[in-house]
């Protein structure tokens, strides 16, 4: 006897040998029947008669085979496989229906899968560091009133003194590394390249827990003040500039004209907070310096929760330490400590958007489900006769429900598979569309987790859309169905109408939400930020400190701007320490007006500082409200001065003439009182949605920055860009000119998140609208088909065609009106949660809702009119002959 496999395995194997087994049984039974026939022939019957008699005696071969399969195979699975074969045949026959359902589900499941994969990769997946969930960033924090109003300003960078005290005192956190963004010009390896770097303390790499691919990371010796400079490269820079040469480690490169030794290369994909950082160097802070006396706050801190410590414990402890330091040092007065999980740091801004988009795509999927359920109902109504006959032939109720469910599952899985393909494509588009820093992941992909999600979602969708039609159909009286010939029994019209109403309501919510986001992006783009952003070209430059002393920097920028002003098409040109609005100010500090009592430091008023060259306000068309702006003459004269903005004048100099005031700002080593020579218009600070902050402008000679952003007002930005770079290269060929773009483009990038919100939700809403109108169209078409006979009689009796069309369109619009009313009410309630994503529009904005309703009415009228016209074209004679 052959070795027998365990029964379970044999039965599963049996699924694959079904056909062979079926054949085997057929042959065996044929032999039996044949033998019976021979018996009868021997008894004197004719061949034909004998065959008939044998068949009669044997009974149904089919039925016996089925019982054989029941014994030998896995009955439910085999039944389902038979169902699938049967259904696939049926679906191929009604191709229109199948296509409509599969495409609808593809939209719903695909959108859902795409957004899920973004959420998964940004919010759910482990961070790319060992035990990454333990990592936190630590900030000093101040009461809101000290700096501006937006929540972001609550956190502040850290004084090295506080960093060292935290490190010494904390029992819940370990590591405590500092990091700071730094941008350097890399020379000696191909063209000069501006490289974004982070300068970090020796604790940085051990705290993150990531080992280098090659060489080593930074040691405490590298991090000592005045130690030889070393650098760790990103895998990407090592690949692109050093051709993945292992001998790159040990090489000397020049960064800002200073020699630096490469000591290591990080593994691919290593990053900390920013995608575009390609080098890490030692920050070399002197840990014995009295930092509270000599400098302000300028480093960021990352630390790691000790194992088993909850973030709440760490917060409590760090706040206590912060309070102790605030009580001890004048410098720390009002300062506390804020701990932010690294995950939140990475996704904070995008998280709300993602959740809103996920909700939106969930609504879209529901619309798709309603649509498909409706189509399935319509189909099962038209198949009622077939089902009744099958019931009569002995198919059980459960068998019929099973078959209908298998049908909807099959459709959902096919739709889901196409949906995954759609998700794949839209993720690529999303990455191409979103600026790198928005998503902070190098790529979005569909992997096994996402596939499992899509599969689960498809199966659920299939069950949800299939269950109602299945139960309805199976519950019907078979006799009534057959007698009615499957034609005039109405097909659960109330349920189908309810489905259309739900679709319309949800579409209204989607459209209103998307409408608000579109209004937001329009408002942001049109926001008056206080200057004219059109036709301004910007680019960024950093001068290497080794070759440029203070006066040389000022004269370099003066010379460069003069050369650019001479280019054709250029109206004016100037520079500032960073981009207007979105670029960070040079700093913030205490200030004091001559002739008023000097308050102790914590109570002194605070102002932001920006650095500009002569011509800056004219170039950006920021109005000079009082006095004048800096001129070339100011740069040459020994007398220095300040310009302030309107917010500063309004807040601090309300009752006096600003131009008669002299102020000093604690910003540099020596801070003389200087006269205010001009008051300029306000410019949004931080983002176009924020208000201006009190600001004092320094001229570049007073504060000769290395890195400046150039602004060129020109009639032909394209040509001017190339000519400007050439002009700069003629003055110094070793400078990297970066971020060459229009000011308008730069500002648009700063609202990329909002643009993405508007675009993605808009796409969802339009899909929803299309699905809902298809649903309405489908329902009305069916109703018209069903009423053909009645309509024929009416036409024959002389009913006006206009009235007929009106009754069909009216029936459709009535459903839409009910759905729209529900949708508007729901939108009113639900969309309030979008508050923080909106700008320049309220969640209950009447004109947005009105526009949505107008659009809906137009589309609904169109979707109803086509079936209405068909009704009007009914030929009375044909219609009456139908039965």
């Amino acid at each position, binding site marked *: 006897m052959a070795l027998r496999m365990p029964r379970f395995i044999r039965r599963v194997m049996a699924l694959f040998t079904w056909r062979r087994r079926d054949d*085997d049984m057929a042959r*065996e039974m044929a*032999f*039996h029947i044949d033998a019976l026939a021979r018996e009868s022939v021997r008894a004197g019957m004719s061949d034909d008669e004998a065959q008939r008699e044998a068949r009669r005696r044997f009974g149904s071969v089919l*039925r016996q085979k089925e*019982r*054989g399969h029941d*014994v*030998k195979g896995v009955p439910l699975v085999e039944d389902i496989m038979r169902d699938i074969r049967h259904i696939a045949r049926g679906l191929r026959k009604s191709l229109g229906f199948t296509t409509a359902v599969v495409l609808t589900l593809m939209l719903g499941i695909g959108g859902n899968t795409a957004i899920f994969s973004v959420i998964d990769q940004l919010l759910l997946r482990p961070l790319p560091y060992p035990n990454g969930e333990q990592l936190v960033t630590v900030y000093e924090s101040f009461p809101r009133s000290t700096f501006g109003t937006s929540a972001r300003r609550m956190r502040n960078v850290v004084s090295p003194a506080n960093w060292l005290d935290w490190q010494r005192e904390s029992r819940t956190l370990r590591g405590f590394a500092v990091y700071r963004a730094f941008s350097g010009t890399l020379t000696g390896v191909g063209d000069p390249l501006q490289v974004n770097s982070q300068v970090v303390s020796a604790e940085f790499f051990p705290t993150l827990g990531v080992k280098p691919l090659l060489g080593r990371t930074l040691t405490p010796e590298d991090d000592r003040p005045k130690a030889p400079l070393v650098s760790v490269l990103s895998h990407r820079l090592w690949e692109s500039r050093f051709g993945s040469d292992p001998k790159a480690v040990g090489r000397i490169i020049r960064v800002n004209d200073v020699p630096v030794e490469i000591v290591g290369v990080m593994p691919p994909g290593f990053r900390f907070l920013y995608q575009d950082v390609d080098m890490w160097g030692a920050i070399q802070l002197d840990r014995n310096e009295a930092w509270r006396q000599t400098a302000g706050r300028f480093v960021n801190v990352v630390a790691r929760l000790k194992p088993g410590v909850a973030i709440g414990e760490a917060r409590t402890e760090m706040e206590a330490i912060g309070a102790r330091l605030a009580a001890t040092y004048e410098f720390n007065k009002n300062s506390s400590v804020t701990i932010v999980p690294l995950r939140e740091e990475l996704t904070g801004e995008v998280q709300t958007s993602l959740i809103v988009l996920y909700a939106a795509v969930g609504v879209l999927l529901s619309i798709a489900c309603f649509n498909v359920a409706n189509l399935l109902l319509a189909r099962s109504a038209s198949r009622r006769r077939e089902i009744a006959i099958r019931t009569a032939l002995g198919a059980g109720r459960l068998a019929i429900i099973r078959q209908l469910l298998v049908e909807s599952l099959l459709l959902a899985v096919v739709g889901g598979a196409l949906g995954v393909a759609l998700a794949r494509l839209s993720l690529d588009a999303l990455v191409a569309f979103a600026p790198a820093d928005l998503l902070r992941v190098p790529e979005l992909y569909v992997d096994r987790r996402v596939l499992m999600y899509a599969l689960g979602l498809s199966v659920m969708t299939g069950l949800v859309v299939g269950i109602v039609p299945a139960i309805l159909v199976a519950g019907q009286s078979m006799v009534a169905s057959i007698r009615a010939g499957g034609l005039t029994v109405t097909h659960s019209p109330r349920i189908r109408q309810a489905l259309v109403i739900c679709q319309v309501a949800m579409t209204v919510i989607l459209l209103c939400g998307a409408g608000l986001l579109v209004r937001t992006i329009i408002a942001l783009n049109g926001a008056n930020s206080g200057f004219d952003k059109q036709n301004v070209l910007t680019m960024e430059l950093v001068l290497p400190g080794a070759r440029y002393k203070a006066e040389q920097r000022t004269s370099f920028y003066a010379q460069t701007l003069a050369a650019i002003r001479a280019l054709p098409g250029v109206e004016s040109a100037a520079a500032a320490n960073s981009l207007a609005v979105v670029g960070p100010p040079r700093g913030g500090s205490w200030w004091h007006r001559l002739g008023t009592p000097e308050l102790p430091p914590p109570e002194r008023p605070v102002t932001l500082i920006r650095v500009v060259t002569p011509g800056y306000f004219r170039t950006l068309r920021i109005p000079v409200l009082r006095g004048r702006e800096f001129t070339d003459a100011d740069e040459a004269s020994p007398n220095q001065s300040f310009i302030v903005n309107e917010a500063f004048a309004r807040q601090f100099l309300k009752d006096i003439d600003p131009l008669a005031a002299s102020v000093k700002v604690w910003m540099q080593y020596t801070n003389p009182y200087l006269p205010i020579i001009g008051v300029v218009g306000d410019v949004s600070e931080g983002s176009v949605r924020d208000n201006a902050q009190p600001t004092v402008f320094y001229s570049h000679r007073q504060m000769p920055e290395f890195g400046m952003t150039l602004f060129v007002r020109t009639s032909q930005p394209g040509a001017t860009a190339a000519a400007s770079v050439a002009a700069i290269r003629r003055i110094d060929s070793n400078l990297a000119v970066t971020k060459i773009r229009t000011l308008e483009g730069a500002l648009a990038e700063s609202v990329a998140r909002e643009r993405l919100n508007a675009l993605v939700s808009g796409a969802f809403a339009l899909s929803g609208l299309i699905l809902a109108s298809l649903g309405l169209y489908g329902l009305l078409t069916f109703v018209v088909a069903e009423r053909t006979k009645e309509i024929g009689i009416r036409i024959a009796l002389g009913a006006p065609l206009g009235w007929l069309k009106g009754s069909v369109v009216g029936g459709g619009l009535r459903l839409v009106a009910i759905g729209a009313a529900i949708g508007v009410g729901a939108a009113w309630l639900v969309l309030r949660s979008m508050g923080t994503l909106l700008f320049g529009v309220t969640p209950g904005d009447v004109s947005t809702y009105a526009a949505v309703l107008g659009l809906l009415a137009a589309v609904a009228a169109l979707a109803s009119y086509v079936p209405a016209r068909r009704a009007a074209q009914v030929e009375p004679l044909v219609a009456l002959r139908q039965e």
Partner: protein
Amino acid sequence: MAVRQFDLLQGTLDLLILKSLNTGANHGYGIATRLHQLSDDVLKVEEGSLYPALYRLEEQGLIESEWRATENNRKAKFYSLTRKGRAAAQAEHEAWLRLSKAVTRVLKALEQGA
């Protein structure tokens, strides 16, 4: 006098199939004919129960099957007992004897008591 034909109880059919195979392999038609003849045409094996019973016994590992030529040189599927089937046939047989003796005893006693 017409002989009344009986349908077989399920367990009984299994026993008869196993016992009829005790003397050698046979095909479905052969088994049905043999049982019919041996019972003097009293027992009628419905084809509708024969094949499911054969498949069930095969599935239980009591019999095994093989395609072979008949004496008329035609291909048929022959069933034969496995070792497990032989033991089961014996056990079933004894169980049946006990049962039928018991039934007979009860019937007799009831008859005398009446």
